[in-house]
């Protein structure tokens, strides 16, 4: 998934911060993407991604070399995001009240930007129906192609729990997709109606 030189990890473990910087440069996009998909906010995602790298840097001596480094990083990011969502819920902040901000990704043209924005919004609507753990499992499976075993290890749960969570998540997302389709069709019908020459 991510091309990481084992030598960088070894050097970073010996305290070489330049080697760790290379790791940050290589892994920044996957880590940020996971945080963005989990938190649905580019500023919070940036903060979470930075915090993930800080935690990784501070705990590099605990990293088990038999595991994939990128999976270890994603695991730190997922746990941090799950905690953030819990804190957010404790502060009684609803995702529905939060203003939706487009990710800072730049698209080539306005049409593409519009379609990308729509797409991202639909992804956000699908993912926000899920519990934080289910969301993390879905992101790890569909964006990073991690195996059930890797997801289980990253989220500190059993393989059967991962399978069960994913099964439930797919059901919820299928339901949500159906609801979205109904809304999209209604919107289109209203737009067509408003643009018709009779009005």
């Amino acid at each position: 998934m991510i091309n990481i030189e084992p030598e960088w990890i070894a050097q970073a473990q010996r305290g070489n911060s330049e080697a760790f910087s290379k790791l940050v440069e290589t892994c920044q996009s996957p880590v940020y993407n996971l945080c963005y998909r989990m938190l649905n906010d580019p500023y919070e995602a940036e903060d979470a991604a930075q915090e993930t790298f800080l935690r990784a840097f501070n705990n590099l001596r605990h990293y088990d070399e038999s595991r994939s480094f990128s999976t270890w990083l994603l695991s730190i990011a997922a746990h941090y995001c799950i905690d953030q969502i819990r804190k957010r819920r404790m502060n009684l902040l609803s995702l529905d009240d939060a203003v939706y901000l487009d990710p800072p990704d730049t698209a080539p043209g306005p049409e593409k930007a519009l379609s990308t924005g729509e797409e991202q919004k639909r992804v956000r609507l699908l993912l926000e129906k899920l519990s934080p753990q289910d969301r993390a499992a879905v992101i790890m499976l569909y964006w990073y192609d991690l195996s059930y075993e890797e997801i289980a290890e990253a989220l500190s749960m059993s393989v059967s729990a991962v399978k069960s969570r994913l099964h439930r998540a797919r059901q919820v997302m299928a339901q949500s997709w159906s609801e979205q389709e109904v809304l999209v069709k209604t919107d289109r019908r209203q737009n067509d109606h408003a643009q018709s020459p009779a009005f």
Partner: protein
Amino acid sequence: MTMLNHQPFRDWLFSEESLNPQDALLFQEHLRTCEDCQRQRLAWNGARHLFQSSGQVDPAPGFMNRWQMRLAAQRLRKQHKLAWTFFFAAAGLALLTLAVLGWQVMEAFRAPQSLLLILFLRLAGFVTLWNTVGDYLSVFRAMVPGLPVVGLVFFTGFISMISVLWLATYKRLISVRRIVE
């Protein structure tokens, strides 16, 4: 079709594990007849396709610099924390010492007779020591009549210096010489 025999198909619908040929055939047959399962399958396929096509979101440019700044800020915070911890530990130790000393002084003031007795005994001890040293010195001066006290001090110092020099020389002489290749 009852919900009881409908359930395995619902499970297969959202499971991404491959079915055996017989189950796969049964599932396809069911999908042809069950509209609800068809809708669910279409919905899930739409969602999955969206995930696969939406790609990865990148952070804003300059992520690396911002991370390095954050790392530097964290290191500074750690240093400050360490300095404050050291300061508070030292202050705590000083306060503890002061408290112990204060307690001892209070105890002494509470029973001044014992303090005076100790002071008197210490003073007596000093006087005794002074007299003993004086006696020794007088004996030594009697043995070396021509030497004044200052000369005696210089003589002793000279002897000590010579001893140190002798020890240093001896150490150098007995040490293993380095062989230069």
